[in-house]
């Protein structure tokens, strides 16, 4: 693995932007299989929304793509280059490629002891060697773009949940990612704070950022997805454009899931 040559994300091979083959992941010494030979491809034009029942492997899928999990088998290629692979129980990760993927989590995960500016500049300065002044200028620019420039010196504890999550997204954007992963980023938010976070993600999407989103918010899924994949039992059970998926799901599990979710939304218990 060489670190001398920066990895280049070409748009020409759009069909092979992200290719996952036979991904397997298990916990508790292989007793609990979370991903069960999952196959998935994504183009650079895709905004992929992953939905499905709890424990179906959605979040694990994103964590594997981010390189946060050891995998049992399978491989992930990006632009036709091997990114993650399983080698006799060990997981190989190409760190050059990993550094160009950004991820935002459900629980904000801001660094509580650092103010917003430091949260944004820590990784560029300490991990990418960006000069501090350059990183700070970029942080100001990003914060201005998303209407958060009043909060640069605030600490995470002084922000609302929605602001925290937008800062977390901004922190990922500081590293100029070529693919963004959003793992239930609105699930921990009070309902009135969800829209500001969704608006920020939609703005990114409109700017052409490829993304993969795990969400339980069906309105959001419909609004942003170019493709909806239904993840259950550790595999992709269904993969379709959103209008098709929500109108005519082909698998029984997806039909049941959608009925349950829509029913729950219509008649809250």
């Amino acid at each position, binding site marked *: 693995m060489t670190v001398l040559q920066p990895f280049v994300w070409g748009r020409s091979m759009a069909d092979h932007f992200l290719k996952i083959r036979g991904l397997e992941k298990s916990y508790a010494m292989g007793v609990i299989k979370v991903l069960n030979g999952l196959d998935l491809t994504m183009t650079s034009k895709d905004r992929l929304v992953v939905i499905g029942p709890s424990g179906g492997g959605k979040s694990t899928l994103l964590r594997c793509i981010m390189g946060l999990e050891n995998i049992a088998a399978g491989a992930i290629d990006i632009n036709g280059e091997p990114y993650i692979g399983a080698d006799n129980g060990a997981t190989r990760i190409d760190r050059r490629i990993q550094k160009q993927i950004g991820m935002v989590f459900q*629980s904000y995960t801001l660094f*509580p002891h650092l103010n917003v500016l430091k949260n944004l500049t820590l990784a560029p300065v300490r991990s990418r060697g960006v000069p501090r002044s350059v990183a700070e200028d970029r942080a100001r620019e990003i914060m201005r773009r998303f209407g958060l420039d009043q909060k640069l010196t605030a600490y995470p504890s002084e922000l609302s949940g929605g602001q925290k999550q937008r800062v977390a997204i901004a922190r990922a954007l500081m590293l100029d990612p070529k693919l963004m992963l959003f793992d239930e980023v609105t699930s921990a938010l009070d309902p009135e704070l969800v829209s500001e976070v969704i608006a920020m993600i939609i703005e990114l999407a409109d700017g052409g950022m490829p993304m993969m989103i795990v969400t339980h918010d069906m309105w959001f899924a419909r609004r942003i997805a170019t493709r909806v994949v239904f993840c259950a039992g550790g595999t992709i059970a269904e993969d379709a454009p959103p209008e098709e998926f929500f109108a005519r799901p082909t698998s029984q599990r997806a039909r049941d899931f959608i009925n349950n979710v829509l029913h729950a939304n219509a008649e809250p218990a």
Partner: protein
Amino acid sequence: MDNLDFSVVWKFRDALAWGLMMSLLLSGICSLAGTVLGFFIALCQQSRFRAVRWAAALYVEVLRGAPTLITLFWVFFCLPIILGVEINAFWSSIIALTLYMGAITSESFRSSLKSIGQDQYDACNALGLAPATRTFYVIAPQALIRAIPNILSNVISLFKESTLVSAVGMVELMYTAQSISNITARPIEILTAVALIYFVIGYGFSWVVSSVELRIRARVQS
């Protein structure tokens, strides 16, 4: 009992003030040294090398398990024989109290390190921070902040434990009080006054601790 005379306390105010100053000095030095030692021990307990982890754990268990008075006597009476050098009451006190503070403080650091959630590690890894950067800039600072209230409580314990050093002839508040009550034959007045001094300082300090704790709580929530 009907002729209590607290003026004796005032009469010996200079000696008591000197004793108090020595107690505070001793507690201060040993708190600082012990906190540094404790942080080092806590890191040793996370070491990749089993021998280092075991040595650190052994140190903590022995020092926390043994009465501090025994540690003090051991340093005062046994260590000079083993090392072949004179260790006076002052240095014996410093060494014994620092060893005690190091042991209890390493536990404070250890639990604060453990209390940092997996999501902070995930965030660091997703941002591509190297393990050393992660520890130095994200995990250790949060652990230090979280440990502060605990460390301050340890300082109060240490301040109270420091009365023990009077047993090896270290002149501090407790030793001074004993001497004065022997000379004046007024133990009730002197020892009550000294108890009050320990209480006021300990209680005042714990009040500081809880207000610090409130401020810190805001800084450790992501």
